[in-house]
């Protein structure tokens, strides 16, 4: 009986704990590795430079030099040596990694804040798509900017109410990969594999009654239909 009660209590507590973690998940920890970019990387690099592990300037790009510096830092400080900056390494460096990429836009000269924002949308909406599919999604945003029926800035279009699912579900806050950054740049340079389309949707997930199906599809790239 005693065992049963103890067990019952433990189960009850576990159930509560579980439902808490399901209902209110902790934000996924940010991990920086080769290929990462942005303000977080800049902060880490500034510390590494300050502590003498890295030479040069903090450019916000996690390359091999940064990885080597991180490995050296991890070795000397008794951390798990994996060349990546997770919560433990970040804490040892005295850096707090922000999961909101928008909090501080990359400090690099070559990535403008518009490009970074566009890349975040591309990554959130099309990370499983081919490179062409990524450029196409970025091009749709830019076509909207120059259309009279949409806001006139990149941020206006991306954050327009109900425009993109990734904005409502928070996926837009993930850090973009280098393909998405390049795709955003490509579209800003004028490449447009959709030829001026204003809408895209995933034909396999769109509900059959959706108004978007009334739009004329001009081209299909991967899972996305692009429409005028």
């Amino acid at each position, binding site marked *: *009986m*005693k065992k049963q*009660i*103890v067990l*019952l*209590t433990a189960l*009850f*507590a576990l159930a*509560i704990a579980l439902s808490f973690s399901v209902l209110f998940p902790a934000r996924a920890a940010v991990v920086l590795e080769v290929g990462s970019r942005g303000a977080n990387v800049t902060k880490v690099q500034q510390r590494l430079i300050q502590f003498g592990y890295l030479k040069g300037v903090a450019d916000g790009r996690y390359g091999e030099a940064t990885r080597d510096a991180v490995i050296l830092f991890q070795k000397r400080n008794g951390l798990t040596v994996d060349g990546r900056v997770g919560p433990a390494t970040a804490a040892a460096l005295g850096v707090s990694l922000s999961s909101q990429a928008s909090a501080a836009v990359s400090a690099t*000269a*070559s990535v403008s804040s518009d490009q970074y924002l566009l890349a975040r949308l591309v990554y959130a909406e099309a990370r499983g798509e*081919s*490179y*062409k599919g990524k*450029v196409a999604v970025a091009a749709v945003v830019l076509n909207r900017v*120059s*259309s*009279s*029926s*949409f*806001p*006139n800035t990149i941020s*206006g279009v991306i*954050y*327009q*109410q*109900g*425009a993109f699912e990734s904005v409502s579900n928070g996926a837009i806050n993930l850090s973009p990969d*280098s393909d998405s*950054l*390049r795709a955003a*740049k*490509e579209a800003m*340079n*004028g*490449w*447009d*594999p*959709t*030829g*001026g*389309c204003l809408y895209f949707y995933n034909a396999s997930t769109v509900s059959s009654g959706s*108004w978007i199906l009334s739009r004329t599809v*001009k*081209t*299909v790239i991967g899972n996305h239909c692009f429409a*005028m």
Partner: protein
Amino acid sequence: MTIKRMRMLAAAVAVLTALAVALTIYARAQAEKIDALQNAISASYERAFYETASLMNGIEINLEKAQVAGSDAHRRALLNEIDRDAMSAQNNLAALPASLSVISEALKFVNQTGDIAAVLCGRLNEGGSLTPEDVELLARLHGACVNVNDLIDGVIRDIEQGLDPLSETADGAPVAQVERVKLREVEIDYPILLYDGPFSDGRGETALKALGGPEITPEQALAAARAFVGEDRVIEARLAGEGSVPAPSYEINLSTGDGLISLALSKQGGQVIYMMVEGAARRAAFSQAALIDMAASFLKNRGYPPVAVSYWAAFDNYLTVNFAAVQDGVVLYPDLIKVQMSMESGLPVGLEAVNYLSNHVERSLPEPALSEEAARERLNGALSVERGRLCVVPRGSGEALAWEFAASADDVRYLVYIDAATGEELNIYRVVEDENGQLVI
């Protein structure tokens, strides 16, 4: 034993009670947080709505005043204000939780009204005047604006009577207050000749002027794509599909040492509309200057007309070079071709030719009414001129012949454009140069 058991039972009950209390407190706190958030969101929606309403009122009144204004200076001021208010109104409209298709109609009305005001204002700035048709257009816009504002007022009355315009329908979608605004009814026909600004409806479709020649077969398209990229680079070629924008085209994938190159070739004439690469260049083995030369000779070898470099930018070890076609020494800026080079292999991997294909025709270039000397005298005295040359620049819906001067002041470099017919200063660009390239802003 029974006492022991009762004690344990009591302990268990105590633990469970404590947990239940903790859970209740936690749920309360969460509910309060959710309430606060909901109020904050409602407030920001309502703010956007009220601001839209007051800006639209301002636009309505100014549209009316602009029709009867006695002086061009006053008219300019009113049109300016309409343009500015329209800009703010579109920002606020985009923040409203109405469905995208409904907001689109409202945005279009506001954007085009602002755009028309800017176009008319620009004409007055250049010393022109408003025609009776222009005034008629303002009257029509005013009429449409009155209708929109009546409907907005209706929604505001609802809010004031305590009806929640942000409540949700059964399927969870917000009841869009603007949905009740029958925006489709206020759509008006714009005389196309009067209004061909950046937001005109005519801009949606691009006709490719430079496409000529017979229709090609898929096999010919594959062969043309291989030849365009360079036969020796192609490992495998595949027809990936067909597209219809901006012109009917074949889409072709080529696997190469530089990665997967995708091209779209027009069915008519087999012209490359765009080309892009899915790959990664790991390092920069070539200098930017060498790559620019290689990009130019690539275009020459593929039969494009002579080109001049306009700007270039490196990103991720790819260099994108922007060229403009040249005719008789005159740079045709509307006819842009961009070439992307891998800085690792030194080979072309990308091309973007929509502007070129849309605009490139043989121009009949007039003799400039203004000599280079006379145009140079129009420049700001603080600028020291390095060179001047003739070019064609896009102007409104058409083109203008202009003198382009590369000049500098205090080590800052500029490109200044003077209309070769009227002597008007059309534009100033600041040249920005860093290790990634040279751009103009």
